C-alpha cells in the first residue's frame, strides 16, 4: 500500500519531468496570456453570504415556529 503510493508519486514526478523536458523549447505556461476576471468570485461571495443568512433564518425558524399542527 505504502510502496504503491510511493510508486504513484514517483511516476507522477517522472511524467512531469519528461513533459517539462519535452516542451522546454516549445512551450511554457508563462507564454499564455492571463486575463483575470473577478466578477465570478464576487458573485460567489454574495451568494455565500446570502446562503449563510438563509441557513441562519431556516434554523431560527425551526426553533421559533409555534407548534400548532398535530
Amino acid at each position, binding site marked *: 500500500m505504502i510502496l504503491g503510493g510511493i510508486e504513484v508519486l514517483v511516476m507522477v514526478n517522472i511524467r512531469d519531468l519528461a513533459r517539462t523536458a519535452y516542451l522546454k523549447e516549445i512551450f511554457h505556461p508563462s507564454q499564455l496570456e492571463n486575463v483575470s476576471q473577478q466578477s465570478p468570485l464576487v458573485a460567489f461571495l454574495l451568494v455565500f453570504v446570502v446562503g449563510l443568512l438563509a441557513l441562519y433564518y*431556516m434554523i431560527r425558524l*425551526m426553533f*421559533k415556529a*409555534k*407548534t400548532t*399542527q398535530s
Partner: protein
Amino acid sequence: MNYPVWFLPQLGGGLLIAVIAILHVVISHLAVGGGLFLVVTERQAVKTKNNALLEYVKKHTWFFLLLTMVFGGISGVGIWFIISLVNPAATSSLIHNFVFGWAIEWVFFIGEIVALLIYHYRFGKMDPRAHMILGWLYFIFAWLSLFIINGILGFMLTPGKWIETGNFWQGFFNPSYLPSLIFRTSISLIFAGVFGLVTGAWLKDKELRRSVFHLCAGWIYIPLVILVLTGIYYTRVISAESFENLFHFNRESGPFIKLIIVSSILLFGLGLFTLVRISQPLQKVGAILLVVICFGWMAGFEYMREIARKPFLIYGYMYSTGIRIPVTGQMDHYQGDIRGESAGGGCRDIQTAVYDLSYRRWL
C-alpha cells in the same frame, strides 16, 4: 496537462457515464419540481383543511427525501467520479472555467439539504405558515441549483462567444441557456407529477387516491405545452452543424430519437389512466410503469444532447478524446506521425492512425 486514458474497448466510458447520469438526472429534476409539488400540495391541504391530503404530503416528503437526498446525492458524486475517470481533460476544463459556478452550486445544495431536512423532520411540528416558508425555500434553492448547472451543461453544447473571449458569463449564459432552463424546469414539473403517483398509488383511502391522481395528472399535462414549445426553441439555438449531425448525419441518433418519441407517447398517453377509475393494483403498476418510462425518456433526451455536440465534448473547443482544438504544434506532430506510419504501411487508414495516435500520445 495530459492525462492517462482509461481504455474500455468493450464497454466504452460513455456508456458508464450514461448509466449513472440518466439515473441521477431523473432524480435531480425530480428534486426541483418535486419541491414545488410538496409545498403547493401542502398549501392546498392547509387551505381546504384536508388532513388526509396533508398526511399524503408528509408521507411523500419522506419518499422524496430518500430519493433526492440519498440516491440523488450519491449518484451526483458518482457522476463526478466517472467523468473524471473517463474524460479528465474535459472535467478539468469545466472545473477551471466555472470554479465559482460550482461553488455557488454547492451553496444552493447546502440550502436545499437544510431546508428539506427541517421540512421533513418538523412536518406537523411547526405552524403551517413557517413550515411552508421552508418548503418554498427548498424549492427556490433547488431551482437555483438547476439555474447554475444548466449554464454549465449548456456551455458544453453551445459555448457561444466564450470560445473567443473566455469570459465566464458569456460561457454561462450561452445561446442554449434559456431554452434549456425552461425545458428542464418543465421536465422537473412533469416528473414531480409522475413520482407523486408512486406514493399516491399506495394510499388506502380510495377517494384520496383518486384526488391525488387527478392532482398529479395536472402536474404531468400542464407543463407539456411549454415542454414542446421550448423543445422546438432548443433545436433552433444549437448550431446548424449540431442540428444536421443530430437529425440527419449521425445514424447513432436514430434509436434515441425513436426512444424519446415512443417514451413521450407512452408517458403522456399512459398517463391518462390517472383520470379514469381503475383498481388499485393497476394504479400501482401504472405508476411504476410511468417512472420507468421517465428514465427511458431522459435517456433519449440526454443521448440526443450528447450526439448533437459530437465530435466534441465542449463544442468547438475540445474533442471527445480530450484533445483541444487550438493546441498548436500538436496536430503537426500527429500529421508527421501519420505520414510516417502510412508510408511504412503500419496503419490501415488515416482515421485509424488518428485514433491510435491520439490515444498513444496521451498514454
